[in-house]
């Protein structure tokens, strides 16, 4: 399992530079927003957390269709399916490796983009914290979509369409927790704890459903 984790991690960092492209895409999205809404710093500070969250969500989806596709192409997916360790565990490890490889760099890049957006220190810290907690949920939900689309010849776009509606709760609670940290009256903990609950819930459900879909599509 640790070997699989390290292998996936190395692949995502070295070959093709998946992690780097994700961060670049993230920065591009956030950089394009001021062109659209204008360079008003107060407005940017107000919508900043939401923009950073949406950017992170889209860039996390960007690499998801490769989660099982490359394994299928070189045949190692069949080996993983036949392996004696439970498939659910394998999928969970692959999700974790994918998260460390692509979502963690996004979290690390988010303070810089927060500065671009003229957000204050509390907001930046809150965005980082909510992203760390919330982005695994996106990966676990996306794993189901990736497993479903693994048999499709051109699954990339379809994965995003299928997965985005399911990630709505993550986005809502991530952004509302961030705003709660900045604006005084609203308490920070309730939305944050719900975000944690959503992540844990999909950590249990996502790998199981993805494993089921992989088994069914492999037959």
């Amino acid at each position, binding site marked *: 399992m640790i070997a699989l984790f390290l292998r996936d991690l190395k692949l995502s960092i070295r070959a093709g530079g998946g992690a780097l492209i994700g961060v670049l895409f993230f920065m591009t999205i956030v950089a394009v927003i001021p062109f659209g809404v204008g360079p008003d710093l107060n407005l940017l500070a107000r919508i900043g957390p939401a923009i950073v969250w949406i950017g992170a969500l889209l860039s996390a989806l960007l690499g998801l269709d490769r989660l099982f596709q490359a394994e299928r192409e070189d045949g190692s997916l069949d080996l993983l399916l036949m392996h004696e360790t439970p498939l659910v565990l394998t999928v969970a490890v692959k999700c974790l490796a994918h998260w460390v490889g692509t979502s963690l760099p996004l979290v690390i890049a988010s303070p810089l983009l927060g500065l671009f957006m003229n957000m204050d220190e509390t907001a930046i810290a809150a965005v980082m914290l909510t992203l760390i907690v919330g982005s695994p949920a996106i990966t676990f*939900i996306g794993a*189901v*979509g990736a*497993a*479903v*689309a693994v*048999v*499709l010849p051109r*699954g990339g776009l*379809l994965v995003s*369409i*299928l997965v*985005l*509606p*399911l990630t*709505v*709760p993550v986005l*809502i*609670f991530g952004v*509302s927790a961030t705003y709660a940290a900045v604006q005084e009256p609203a308490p920070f903990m309730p939305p944050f704890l*719900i975000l944690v609950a*959503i992540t844990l819930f999909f950590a249990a*459900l996502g790998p199981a*459903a993805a494993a*089921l*879909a992989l088994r*069914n*599509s492999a*037959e």
Partner: protein
Amino acid sequence: MSENSLAITKFSDLANPTRFLALVARVLPWMAGTTALLFALGLYLGFAAEGDYQQGETVRIMYVHVPAAWLSMMCYTVMAASAIGTLVWRHPLADVSAKTAAPLGAGFTLIALITGSLWGKPMWGTWWVWDARLTSVFVLFLMYLGLIALNRAMDDPSKAARVSAVLILVGFVNIPIIKFSVEWWNTLHQPASVVRLDGPTIDPEFLRPLLVMAVAFTVLFFTLHLAAMRNEILRRRVSAQRRLAARMAAREA
């Protein structure tokens, strides 16, 4: 085939498409007739009922809007039950049922969205607000369309059915989460007023046509669903026959 062999005693007997088709052929005209009668009665009651003292004539939109919204959710429940049937019992008709229910569900959701929008313009003064109920129904609509796209993207119908069954079930767990998350987030749409613990708060004058229309919509859904399932079975037979014919032609050539 004698009449006896077509008798359906167990649910699993429906797995035989010929039996199912025979049953549909017998039941469908009755269901279509019931639908037409109920719609006639419901529309008559709906137009005969008085207008609301505040909303005036626009309250009649409710008789289409509310049942369509209920049906959009019931349809997803039917799809989830079929998905369980596909994954657990490998029931061949469950594939067909889940696949054909998706466009129907998308249709009912679209009706609910459009009529709601038409109703919102005179009442709220806007076509669309990002309110909890509207947003979650819109997300449901997107999920229906995504499932249809997924089903279309695969050639092998049984594989497509099994893979989309997984997604239907994941979506089914997620629908309550989406619903409650947007509910806490922002709201304008009125809360439920018919199904609640302390009895309906809506006047019986409006409730009667509403319930008749709800039953009419439900029967309409099952009629359309059975007809769509029959068409899907026939379509699969035609494509199987075509494949067979092509193979025969290749052998002769």
